[in-house]
């Protein structure tokens, strides 16, 4: 079947799915939606639709993540009148009302509505594109996430999918590479190397057999962009991988994906099966003589396998340890053959660029950082979720407008970007534009796109210690600077957070950080001191408070704090008594309670559950001193 015929069939299927007046219920059922209970909601809809005899009439479909994770589970309902409304925080108990009111009577349930997607306005409910969390976004990578059924290839085809591949196959591979260079796309895995140039190295490398690999080993804690794209729109990446294969002259592609992402793996397998059925994968694709196969390789839980040479070793069935470069994978990669590796977001951008052209793409972003970038917003922020913004957008817009600021009226302290390889950006730099250059200037990196927001109750020494405990345990141990250096840094940071810090530790942290950064073999070690360096740069006072006064200003480091109940504020409700894991709180009903500091383990449970802010945290009267 030729491409035009495929597209016609797909268009018919999409029109049938999306035509106005066809009642349907779409449930965001990516991993995040499921964690919030989306599958129970799905089951409740199935039951309710059956009870009302509507199962044949109303389409009930699981879709991917539209990015508004804070409002999960999300359900979009289109009634017979064509009006589509997005409902938030839907519980199984709400489903009967939604079915009877919206689907049957065409009366949307305003109090559960988050936005109107299409159709007549609703009083007090904004349009989807007017939501502050959506208004600043430009969705290229996430163009189909939360819109299409990710298991239905027709939806992807009808929305322009595989148009980029079809166009690329009509061009010379060298011209495809030129187009990628012209688009200005840079690798979205973290380092930001220009994608087109990377392809040209692998294209020019001598070899009868070449490979392309999609790096879906999204290991940065706090990052979930790739997971969401693979769960919500797997074809966007797969099309990009095929285009990359054609451009460099490869017939085989691998997707190296974390085993922690079972739903993404399942969606990929379905997508590959559909591609084969349509003749879009295999031999002589679209009658052009291009042959291509794709294999899925599951990772086995090693962060270092996000590094290119370690990833290759892992696919080859070895311990996932990096090796010195050169030779670069473009010369000698998988099985010793020229290999090109791109990450999920890069490849999902490639398919859009080939469909719509380099000029279209280069209109977004800044001079040196073109296009859009997805970010995973998490931590102490109101609108946690997944966003995609044009490069160059001010960091403040992301935090305050899209993210909706810090919850509970607390003060913003820093945003951590780039995961364990990145740094913490403090409030004074909130006005920088988000692009590769500016993030590097303030000491952080773009990284893969995790953004974890910290507030006044986050201790920056503890954050540095957290990341070092991560890199220390994930260091593969091959090179000494990383193996010993991360251990050494972690030990010093632990000492500081536990009240055993010494004044000379600050200089020592800086010295060891530099040695690890310069001496390590791969990116994991080279960037591992970044969390220490940036927190020292912007929050040295906090380190000094821990070291010199044995105080944790944020009230986090347990060895340095004590809890006390304010008798003026305590109502004696007893909630803290229930939550205290060591029974350290006593008091009569409706009388102020007290904490036995000798029994208390400073876990902070009481403070987090107290509705009257009666649990106070302060420095210890007798701090634990250095031995």
């Amino acid at each position, binding site marked *: 079947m030729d491409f035009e015929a495929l597209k016609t069939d797909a268009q018919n299927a999409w029109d049938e799915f999306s035509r106005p007046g066809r009642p349907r219920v779409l449930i965001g059922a990516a991993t995040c939606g499921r964690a919030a209970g989306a599958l129970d909601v799905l089951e409740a809809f199935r039951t309710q639709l059956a009870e009302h005899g509507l199962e044949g009439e109303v389409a009930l479909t699981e879709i991917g993540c539209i990015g508004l994770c804070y409002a999960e589970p999300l359900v979009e309902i289109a009634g017979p009148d064509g009006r589509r409304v997005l409902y938030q925080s839907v519980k199984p108990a709400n489903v009967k009302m939604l079915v009877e009111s919206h689907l049957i009577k065409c009366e949307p349930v305003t109090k559960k509505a988050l936005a109107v997607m299409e159709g007549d306005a609703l009083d007090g409910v904004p349009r989807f594109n007017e939501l502050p969390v959506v208004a600043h976004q430009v969705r290229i990578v996430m163009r189909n996430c939360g819109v299409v059924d990710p298991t239905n290839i027709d939806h992807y085809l009808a929305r322009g999918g595989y148009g980029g591949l079809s166009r690329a196959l009509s061009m010379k591979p060298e011209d495809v590479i030129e187009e990628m260079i012209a688009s200005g796309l840079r690798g979205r895995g973290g380092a930001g190397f220009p994608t087109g140039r990377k392809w040209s190295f692998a294209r020019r490398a001598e070899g009868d057999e070449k490979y392309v690999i999609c790096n879906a080993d999204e290991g940065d804690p706090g990052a979930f962009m790739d997971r969401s794209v693979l769960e919500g729109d797997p074809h966007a990446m797969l099309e990009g991988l095929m285009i990359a294969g054609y451009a460099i002259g490869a017939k085989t592609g691998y997707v190296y994906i974390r085993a922690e992402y079972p739903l993404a793996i399942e969606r990929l397998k379905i997508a590959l099966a559909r591609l084969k059925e349509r003749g879009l994968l295999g031999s002589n694709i679209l009658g052009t003589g291009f042959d291509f196969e794709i294999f899925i390789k599951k990772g086995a839980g090693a962060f270092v396998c996000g590094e290119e040479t370690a990833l290759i070793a892992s696919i080859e069935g070895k311990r996932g340890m990096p090796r010195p470069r050169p030779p670069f994978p473009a010369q000698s990669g998988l099985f010793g053959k020229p290999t090109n590796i791109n990450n999920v977001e890069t490849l999902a951008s490639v398919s859009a660029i080939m469909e719509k052209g380099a000029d279209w793409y280069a209109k977004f972003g800044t001079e040196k950082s073109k296009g859009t970038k997805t970010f995973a*917003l998490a*931590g102490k922020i109101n609108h946690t979720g997944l966003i995609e913004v044009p490069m160059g957008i001010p960091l403040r817009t992301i935090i305050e407008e899209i993210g909706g600021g810090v919850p509970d009226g607390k003060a913003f302290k820093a945003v951590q970007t780039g995961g364990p390889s990145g740094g913490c950006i403090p409030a004074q730099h909130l006005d920088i534009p988000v692009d590769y250059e500016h993030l590097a200037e303030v000491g952080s990196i773009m990284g893969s796109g995790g953004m974890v927001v910290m507030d006044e109750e986050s201790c920056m020494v503890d954050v540095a210690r957290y990341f070092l405990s991560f890199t220390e345990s994930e260091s593969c141990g091959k090179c000494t600077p990383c193996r010993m250096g991360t251990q050494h840094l972690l030990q010093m940071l632990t000492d500081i957070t536990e009240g055993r810090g010494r004044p000379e530790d600050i200089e020592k942290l800086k010295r060891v950080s530099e040695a690890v950064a310069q001496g390590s073999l791969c990116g994991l070690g080279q960037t591992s001191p970044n969390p220490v360096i940036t927190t020292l740069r912007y929050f040295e006072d906090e380190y000094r408070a821990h070291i010199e006064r044995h105080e944790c200003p944020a009230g986090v480091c347990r060895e340095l704090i004590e809890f006390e109940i304010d008798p003026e504020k305590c109502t004696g409700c007893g909630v803290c008594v229930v939550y205290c*894991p060591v029974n350290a709180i006593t008091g009569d009903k409706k009388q102020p309670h007290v904490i036995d500091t000798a029994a208390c383990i400073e876990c902070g449970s009481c403070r987090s559950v107290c509705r009257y802010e009666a649990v106070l945290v302060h420095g210890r009267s007798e701090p634990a001193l250095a031995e």
Partner: protein
Amino acid sequence: MTTATMSPDVQGVLSGYDERRQNLIPILQDVQDVLGYLSEDAVSRVADHLGLSENDVFGVATFYTQFRFTPPGRHCIKVCQGTACHVRGSGLIVEELERRLGVAPGETTEDLKFSLERVACYGSCALAPVVVIDDDVHGRMNARKAEKLIEELD
């Protein structure tokens, strides 16, 4: 152990793969799926099948955190340790579960009912902190909610 006496499940896994080394990790993953862990016998069979030394196979298996070498509990409780979960208090959940189950992360209770594990980021950061029980992801957790979920398991 000879092929005749070994677990038919492991034999079934091996028959699906040829002897290329690149099959090692997928084989180990499949073996762990059917046995719940990598037994010494299974490792030995895998080594035979691929023409590798047991040493080599153990070397690879111990490198990756996914593989375990003791039988798991009936229910596997994983507490996410990602950044977002950390700043939202997942450490407290692990501690509370340690106290309640009487085991440290990486261990299994004596009655083989529960295994407790810490996992690197699960990618559900927007719903932090996250606890994964037998492959079901539960978001917006705290120690009490996690305990309740565990009480419901048999």
